[in-house]
């Protein structure tokens, strides 16, 4: 007997170009809340997806109550009593609470024509709910409930079946402060019933509120497993362990020739998404903005690109106030966003490279009545893709066939084609393999010599490694704004994940 409810040993998983997990060990005791921590790309979600049956492991063993089990599908995981509740649980908005809890398990004998006894279901659901410190109207349609209630219903739904291990993936990312405490009370109640909870979060301060032990992984390997009640387990130490010793040398040299201001924001706010963002983006200086998912950084990027209308604050381009009404407007004024989701937001996948590169500024290569001057177009596109180093340098190549890094370069070429003066990069290396990352960073640095560059990312190392001036956003509030030399990476991470050092 090892005393563990669940043990994962030597788990390895490889994706094309990335060794996501390289022999990770992870174990949870009965009735324990165990946090799994790591920066973006450390391998947390890969490990959880292996546990929940979304991915298959390449190597390693999983033991449940000391017996080896195989998990090949989400159904397998459920049959073993391993339940996962994701950030925004998938609910069926028009179902009532009790219908949702028992969906698929309405009756003992689940025949096609079995009758659903609503009253009976309602009572069963109420009995489960009464075990926990939560008060939810189970007769209301799920879509009318708040975020925390939906999440609790998703947990109750897991409870209504066999459950011994519950995985909570960033459970508080969309919850308010009071909602959080409702969830924490539920977690405490689940613990008492002997259920093991794997708690994944970026938010160090709440981890210490609810967690018994924590395991930190980095680059697909175990770094440490700590006792949360140990005095030495403080956020700074956790941050150090999450980040490792040194920043790798994939980042280009810092900027040293700061020139004139191009784009400035003053007190920019968007509803509940972000407040009072003030910055000055200059040529020769990369402005890095770090914030987790839900911190408002995504919305900030889209606001700067005219896709959202700010509720307060002003934007100035070359010192003159501007109002952006659309992305079309932003591009016309020389602001270009390199979006996070290349396939969906960045590229017309069916079309060749020249079509994609020239799309944002067709007027440049058009003659009378909008007729496209094909030869001029291809010449200009060809020069740009040479400059950024797309391979193959063939303007007729279909963009869908290119690698992630090359697709990113095609999108940058599209911005260059518009002769933009402000480039906003949103998560520029998401889904790009490690080898291609440094190429993109060099390109960003090169762009910053002639244009203002704003790098917005939830990858703290990237922001720290590439940015010259750093802003951190936490839950929509600016928690840090400083030159990169004046802050350590650990401090920056803490500002972004818990709002203070």
């Amino acid at each position: 007997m090892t005393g563990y409810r669940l043990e994962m040993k030597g788990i390895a998983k490889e994706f094309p170009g990335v060794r996501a997990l390289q022999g990770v060990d992870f174990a949870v005791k009965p009735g324990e809340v165990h946090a799994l921590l790591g920066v973006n790309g450390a391998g947390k979600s890969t490990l959880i997806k292996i546990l929940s049956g979304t991915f298959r492991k390449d190597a390693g063993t999983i033991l449940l109550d000391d017996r080896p089990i195989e998990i090949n599908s989400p159904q397998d995981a459920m049959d073993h009593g391993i339940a996962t509740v994701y950030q925004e649980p998938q609910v069926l908005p028009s179902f009532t609470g009790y219908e949702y809890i028992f969906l698929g398990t309405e009756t003992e004998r689940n025949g096609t024509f079995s009758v659903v006894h609503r009253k009976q279901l309602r009572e069963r659901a109420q009995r489960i709910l009464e075990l926990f410190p939560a008060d939810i109207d189970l007769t209301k349609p799920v879509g009318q409930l708040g975020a925390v209630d939906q999440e609790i219903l998703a947990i109750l739904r897991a409870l209504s079946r066999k459950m011994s291990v519950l995985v909570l993936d960033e459970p508080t990312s969309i919850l308010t402060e009071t909602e959080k405490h409702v969830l924490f009370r539920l977690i405490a109640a689940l613990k008492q019933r002997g259920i093991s909870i794997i708690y994944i979060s970026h938010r160090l301060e709440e981890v210490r509120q609810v967690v018994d032990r924590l395991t930190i992984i980095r680059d697909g390997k175990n770094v440490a497993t700590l006792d949360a009640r140990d005095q030495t387990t403080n956020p700074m130490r956790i941050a150090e362990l999450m980040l490792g010793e040194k920043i790798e040398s994939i980042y280009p040299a810092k900027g040293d020739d700061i020139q004139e201001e191009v784009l400035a924001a003053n007190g920019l706010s968007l509803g509940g998404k972000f407040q009072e963002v003030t910055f000055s983006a200059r040529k020769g200086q990369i402005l890095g903005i770090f914030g987790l998912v839900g911190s408002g950084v995504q919305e900030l990027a889209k606001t700067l690109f005219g896709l959202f209308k700010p509720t307060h604050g002003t934007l100035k381009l070359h010192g003159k106030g501007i109002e952006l009404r659309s992305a079309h407007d932003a591009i016309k004024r020389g602001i270009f966003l390199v979006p996070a989701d290349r396939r969906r937001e960045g590229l017309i996948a069916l079309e060749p490279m020249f079509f994609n590169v020239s799309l944002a500024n067709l007027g440049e290569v058009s003659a009378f009545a909008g007729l496209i001057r094909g030869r001029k177009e291809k010449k200009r596109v060809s020069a740009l893709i040479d400059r950024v180093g797309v391979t193959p340098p063939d303007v007729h190549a279909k963009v869908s066939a290119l690698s992630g890094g090359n697709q990113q370069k095609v999108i940058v070429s599209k911005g260059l084609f518009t002769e933009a003066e402000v480039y906003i990069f949103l998560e520029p290396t998401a889904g790009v393999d490690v080898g291609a990352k440094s190429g993109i960073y060099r390109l960003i640095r090169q762009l910053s010599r002639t244009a203002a560059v704003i790098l917005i990312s939830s990858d703290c190392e990237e922001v720290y490694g590439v940015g010259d001036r750093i802003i951190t956003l936490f839950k929509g509030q600016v928690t840090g704004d400083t030159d990169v030399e004046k802050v350590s990476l650990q401090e920056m991470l803490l500002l972004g994940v818990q709002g203070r050092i």
Partner: protein
Amino acid sequence: MTRKPLKMISEDSRPVLIFLMLLVAIFVVFSFLHREFLSTRNISNLLKHASVSSMFALGALFVVVVGHFDLSFHLVCSLSGMTTSFLIANNVPVLPSIAAGLAAGAVFGFCNGIAIGKMRLPDMVTTIATGAIAWGFAWIYSDGSYIWKNATTSGILLLNDALIFGIPLPVILMLAMYFLANVVLHWSRFGRCFYSTGENRVAAIFSGVRVRAYIIAAFMICAVLASVGAIMGNASQGSGSVRVGMVYLLPAYATIFLGSAIFKKPTVYGTFLAALFISTMLNGFTLMAVPYYYSDFMIGLVLIVALALSSSMVVRTRFGTRRAGGGESRKEVAQ
């Protein structure tokens, strides 16, 4: 796409060859089946029919290119045709009457575009509704009966009968419209925007393409070209009929998707060749006095085969990604 079509054809001549073979095959079959088939009179009839029916397909092509469907143009055009006939019957000169008819079509196209491009209502259901509304209006002029007053004296019949250098005017109109559409969709910057709107709406928005404007434009072009077709159709029949466009819905989509199946993408040249093919087929059936429901049967078959053939590229990517990405894009790009 911007490569000159001649060059394109020589580079990738297979689709054109397939069409020519299909056309030759169908000509051979029908000339054996009916000796009238290759007569000058029949060929002229065939071309005139093709001119009207290909007008509907050309308009609907724009809507397909922006990733939508219009199920109203065959009814909207009835309102346009009746408006024109009604004005002519009330002694309004021909050209203003035609202009008024086209304007009626444009208004409905604009409404479709606003509802679908701006308000993001579902395209098929919306256009079923707007079509019904237009159809209802079309009946008001004459309670739905034919309008032939002044038809012979006003000069509207010239639209069907006139010959220019021995070529029937409808054929010249068809060639002119197809040439213009080819310039817009394949040689101009606007074509790039139409295609990118349909292929990836979100990426188009991120590239500064005003996708709403292009969707509205596509629906307007569709309604106006259908109205042109209806007025030409009425001219060939010698009277204004509320039912003038009814038979063109199915052949229009069969034409577009046959062209897409063979050229791997909805194009003006593909639509043109497919229109010739389908009109030839229909003409052959008419000549042999095959009951009309058999031709519906055949065209339905052509449409489904074309859809199956093009499913890998055109339908799945074009319509698949739009559906999948459409809902999210509203969330993402909501302003």
